[in-house]
């Protein structure tokens, strides 16, 4: 692929993105504006994540790409192939072997370790947008820590549904300061963000924002004192690997209403099945 620069983006663009990343890491949870580029995939498919990955990937990296926890879905396969072709780096599906993991909608079940980097694809980075359409005003609200309306949202959930019904993209407070959208991961994964040894980078291509959670940073999910934050639980174990600790997807298996629950993290589930055999 000598027609393209290493990792597709030109070096000048990568430097610009790296500067934004450095700033993002320096101010955990703060949304840094950057000059988002057109990428050879459509908005909504991970243009933000792809640009972040392209800016930081090196020849020695081992890349894993997941979509909804799976390594073998269209989006994951395409992005992994894209970087394999434009960089020649090794790819893997094994969480513990990867140095760089680009993700959409999940954090792997296998605990992350020091030195790993997670790259999240973010559709809408602004947590205050649902109640405040003006960008000038949301910036001011972040600057002055005016976060009362985030609890209005939780209040409405409890009032209308009897509990906090927000199940994904559940807002968090990073390092006791900025309110952040963790991208559309299930709230099940929120505790994995808290004091994680891995570096978490978030890229929103269409909205042109980058933000970050550095390693070991406290990340707290918003809640009320009398309605504390909880994560999803399932009555059954994974039908394939019998795990009771992982995030389960409901899968319809026939046309008679038959359904099973299986791990959404295919690598985790597959490894457990291998070990059981």
């Amino acid at each position, binding site marked *: 692929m000598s027609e393209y620069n290493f990792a597709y983006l030109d070096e000048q663009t990568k430097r610009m993105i790296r500067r934004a990343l450095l700033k993002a890491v320096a101010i955990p949870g703060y949304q840094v504006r950057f000059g988002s580029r057109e990428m050879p995939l459509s908005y909504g498919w991970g243009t933000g994540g792809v640009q972040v990955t392209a800016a930081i990937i090196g020849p020695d990296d081992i890349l894993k790409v997941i979509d909804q926890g799976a390594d073998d879905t269209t989006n994951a396969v395409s992005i992994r192939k894209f970087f394999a072709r434009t960089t020649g780096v090794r790819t893997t599906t094994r969480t513990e072997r990867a140095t760089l993991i680009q993700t959409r909608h999940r954090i792997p079940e296998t605990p992350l370790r020091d030195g790993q980097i997670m790259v999240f694809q973010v559709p809408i980075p602004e947590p205050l947008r649902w109640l405040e359409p003006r960008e000038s005003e949301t910036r*001011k609200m972040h600057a*002055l820590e005016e976060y*009362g309306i985030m609890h*209005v949202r*939780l*209040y409405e959930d409890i009032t*209308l549904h009897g509990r906090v019904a927000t199940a994904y993209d559940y807002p968090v407070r990073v390092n006791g300061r900025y309110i952040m959208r963790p991208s559309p991961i299930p709230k099940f994964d929120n505790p994995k963000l808290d004091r994680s040894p891995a570096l978490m980078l978030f890229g929103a291509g269409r909205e042109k924002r980058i933000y970050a959670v550095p390693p070991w940073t406290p990340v707290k999910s918003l809640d*009320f004192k009398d309605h504390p934050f909880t994560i999803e639980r399932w009555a059954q174990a994974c039908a394939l690997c019998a795990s009771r600790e992982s995030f389960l997807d409901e899968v319809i298996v026939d046309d008679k209403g038959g359904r099973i629950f299986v791990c959404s993290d295919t690598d985790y589930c597959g490894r457990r099945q291998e070990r059981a055999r």
Partner: protein
Amino acid sequence: MTSGPQPPTSTIEVPLLAVRGLTKRYGGRVGCLDVGFDLWPGEVLGVVGESGSGKTSVLQCLAGLLQATAGTAAFAQRDGAVVDILRLPEAARRRLARTDWAMVQQNPRDGLRMGVTAGANVGEPIMAVGARHYGRIRREALGWLRQVEIPEERVDDLPSTFSGGMQQRLQIARALVTRPRLVFMDEPTGGLDVSVQARLLDLLRRLVTDLGLSAVIVTHDLAVARLLAHRLLVMQGGEVIESGLTDRVLDDPQHPYTQLLVSSVLHP
């Protein structure tokens, strides 16, 4: 006139708000010019005048919605410190706006969040100052709905399902829930029909007396001013042309314009 509100008795020696030389220019045109007054704790000040006389410019400059061109407005904080709210950094001004004063807009749609329930509308200001207990926030919201005579079972309804008068009362509950010391009201009875106006005026009068509120009320309706305000400022062309006790100004107007204004009121 004995039906008017009685002036409060107060032992505090500093005015809650002392405004001097307040001026707002919109380019070459004048919004308000050299407006000055003292507002004492527990006092309700009415600002009357025709459309375009500068009433709303005064109010919006004081409430921090507009940047004043010149002047000072010394506000006595709870801790006794006096700050010029026209020169305050934005962060400090917005903090005061959450804790010490409140705004009631003419159109309830400007003062409410129409997309969330009545309870959330009343609860938001206390969540903004740190309330994090759902049960207590809800109890507080229900208490305030009672105060403004909204049936408790409407607490989980959207304000868009409320009548105009109910929306205005909900806005008042939202404004008062943080127990502000100063309330700015811009034509609070503006878009309401007369019987609803009367009910709202009764409510406002009761709340002002019960809570010992200080308020600046902008209105073009002299009957509203008569009922609510202890003192009046009469404005014309951006300037204060007459001021004094409400009954004095309305029953014995001195300035020709005030005389015209008072004589323009229809008596059915």
